[in-house]
């Protein structure tokens, strides 16, 4: 035990404690403020019950559809080798980074009343499609989460030992036998966690519900919080709604953490396994259809953003560039904060893990999963309102909240690398007396750099594309790029919105790629 204690120095301990304190202040503070502001005995009115019902229904339908469609898509990817497979697997990660408002723009271009699909249906006497309300919210959530579940399942398939498929081939298993004896156990292990994770993400997704939902019958709790603060200035109602949202999300997040083995952001997708049971023409056609459908479902909205965006660049208002600059500043600030907090917490958690503890600290870091930006944002609004003008603090508050939201992803990237550095090299480093900066530079950093680059890129992309708490705090004359885009769409300035979408998606992807590539660079140790 004494040797393990040396793995964390005084500086690292201080950094860990500071990070823990700051995260606690940013999460517990707003939650306490909400609890104090919610008037006892107020109860829920019909509008709140409706928001609660719609939140749960859309999350349930979105998660069910995402999971149901991901199974054939992931299975086809897992058992087919074809040119472009690696690219397709990589692109499955793109929707997670894509700003929600950009995706909504692309989906409206394909599935909206004047969209591609309605255009195809019109000569047949069908349509036009109405994307607003539950169908649109579900469609957008499936667009975001189908690729995530597909990647999670693909990791599950890649984890099945190749010998099991060889054994199945040797024993003459039919596809049905392979499904029941080999694939079903994996699906039973992966799907509950994936379903719960998607359910949680759909419960806390604001931008989609704001742009495609709306109206009394299609309002989520988050949109209701937004309306309570921005339109009615009813802070007590906002506090009640935020507490309900936090309670629900905590239950779902704890379930997701218990069930989900991995978040599916890392590697481990591998090459397709050779599958003798799938060497049948019917199954080939089925898999090809699943892959083409997946590619079209994800690719067409992205293509629509590009096609509409290029001519839209000419119609860009000057405000786009000031909004882009503000977005970049907010994103970089939130990224710096998220990575600093994440690293401090990760070091502390890893040191505690070495002593068989650390779960409480880990739970703090993951609170961003349970407390949505709106819950924290509403709490901060209530904290700030008596002492300052919350609208004047839109940028720093957004950066701070986004940092807390990115923290679970940063921790999930950094912790395994830190734990590996300790478990693989820790004793050797201890025996050689390696400590402090030298130990970090020579032992830890070479393992940490790649996940750190990925986590930084992810945090930057999420911060850049965020349309959450900024909508709550921003005064009319201030906007980040996603908020400006939403305002342009609401004003039906679709050409300008298309141009802004292209600028936003380019900046978001560029930020991610720059940091991720930096992480993959050679470590000079």
């Amino acid at each position: 035990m004494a040797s393990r204690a040396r793995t964390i120095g005084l500086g690292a301990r201080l950094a860990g404690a500071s990070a823990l304190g700051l995260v606690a202040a940013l999460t517990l503070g707003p939650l306490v403020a909400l609890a104090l502001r919610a008037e006892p005995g107020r109860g829920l009115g019909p509008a709140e019950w409706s928001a609660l019902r719609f939140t749960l229904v859309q999350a349930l339908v979105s998660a069910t559809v995402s999971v149901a469609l991901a199974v054939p898509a992931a299975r086809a990817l897992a058992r087919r080798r074809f040119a472009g497979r690696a690219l397709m697997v990589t692109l499955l990660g793109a929707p997670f980074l894509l700003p929600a408002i950009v995706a909504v723009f692309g989906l409206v271009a394909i599935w909206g009343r004047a969209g591609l699909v309605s255009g195809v249906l019109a000569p047949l006497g069908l349509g036009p499609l109405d994307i607003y309300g539950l169908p649109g919210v579900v469609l957008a959530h499936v667009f975001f989460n189908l690729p995530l579940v597909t990647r999670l399942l693909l990791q599950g398939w890649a984890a099945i030992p190749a010998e099991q498929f060889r054994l199945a081939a040797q024993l003459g298993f039919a596809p049905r036998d392979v499904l029941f004896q080999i694939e079903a156990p994996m699906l039973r292990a992966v799907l509950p966690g994936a379903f719960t994770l998607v359910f949680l993400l759909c419960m806390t997704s604001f931008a989609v519900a704001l742009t495609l939902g709306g109206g009394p019958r299609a309002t989520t709790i988050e949109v209701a919080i937004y309306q309570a603060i921005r339109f009615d200035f009813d802070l007590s109602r906002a506090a009640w709604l935020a507490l309900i949202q936090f309670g629900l999300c905590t239950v779902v997040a704890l379930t997701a953490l218990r069930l989900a083995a991995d978040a599916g952001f890392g590697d481990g997708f591998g090459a397709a396994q050779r599958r003798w049971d799938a060497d049948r023409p019917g199954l080939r056609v089925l898999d090809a259809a699943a892959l083409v459908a997946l590619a079209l479902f994800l690719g067409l909205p992205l293509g629509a953003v590009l096609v509409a965006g290029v001519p839209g660049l000419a119609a860009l208002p000057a405000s786009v560039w000031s909004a882009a600059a503000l977005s970049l500043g907010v994103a970089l600030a939130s990224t710096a904060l998220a990575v600093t907090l994440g690293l401090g917490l990760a070091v502390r958690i890893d040191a505690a893990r070495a002593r068989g503890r650390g779960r409480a600290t880990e739970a703090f870091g993951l609170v961003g999963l349970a407390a949505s930006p709106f819950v924290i944002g509403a709490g901060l609004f209530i904290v700030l309102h008596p002492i300052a003008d919350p609208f004047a603090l839109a940028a720093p508050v957004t950066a701070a909240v986004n940092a807390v939201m990115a923290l679970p992803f940063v921790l999930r990237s950094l912790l395994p690398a830190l734990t590996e550095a300790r478990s693989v090299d820790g004793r050797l480093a201890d025996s050689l007396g390696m400590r402090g900066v030298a130990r970090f530079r020579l032992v830890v950093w070479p393992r940490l750099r790649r996940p750190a680059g990925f986590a930084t890129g992810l945090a930057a992309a999420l911060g850049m594309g965020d349309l959450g708490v900024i909508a709550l705090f921003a005064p009319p004359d201030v906007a980040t790029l996603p908020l400006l885009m939403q305002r342009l769409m609401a004003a039906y300035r679709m050409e300008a919105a298309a141009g802004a979408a292209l600028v936003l998606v380019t900046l978001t992807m560029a930020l991610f790629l720059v940091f991720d590539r930096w992480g993959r660079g050679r470590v000079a140790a």
Partner: protein
Amino acid sequence: MAVLRLEGLEIVQGDWQLRADLALEPGSATALIGPSGAGKSTLLAAIAGFVEPARGRIVWNGRDLAPIGPADRPVTLVFQNHNLFAQLSVERNVGLGLRPDLRLDRNDWNRVAAALANVGLDGFGPRAPAALSGGERSRVALARALLRDRPILLLDEPFAALGPALRAEMLDLVARIRSESGATLLMVTHLPEDARRIAPATIVVEGGRAHPPGPTATLLDDPPPALAAYLG
């Protein structure tokens, strides 16, 4: 008599390749020995139908096995790991050797029980694989191989993780099964003493080539330079 021939066989994987031109006597027991990465397991995988040769033929009893899938080849391959389905009981894992859909009648289940008894696992049928030791799992895989009753038995180091005494016990079990069934045995091993124990003939795999089988005792007592370098 049925004989296994590898005729001008070439397996190519990227820059790596393995050639083999040899024959195995029917009912013989042969060890495959050679350095890691030489291609011993790949050669077994090719015979079992999991790896397609670039050139040449694998012939059993005069018949080219190329168009025959793994399930229909006269071969049972016992892997190094993952021989059992974790979610199926021991008896159901063995029963797969009779029917992959596990639609077994009373007579079939009796055969399963007899096969388990034959490998020393009487009464183990309802247990889960997770409740078994490494040696017991290997015995289950052998019981299933017994039921499949294929004339060629390929062992890809299934006992590598076992201790010396248990490994010797398993090798004796394999020798008994082979002798009772008359199967042709081809077994990958890293250990000369394993080859001496049950395989009168040995194939040395090194330098991109699987050499024709030679007498095990002679090869190990007076090894050619490549084998001597490997054995140390």
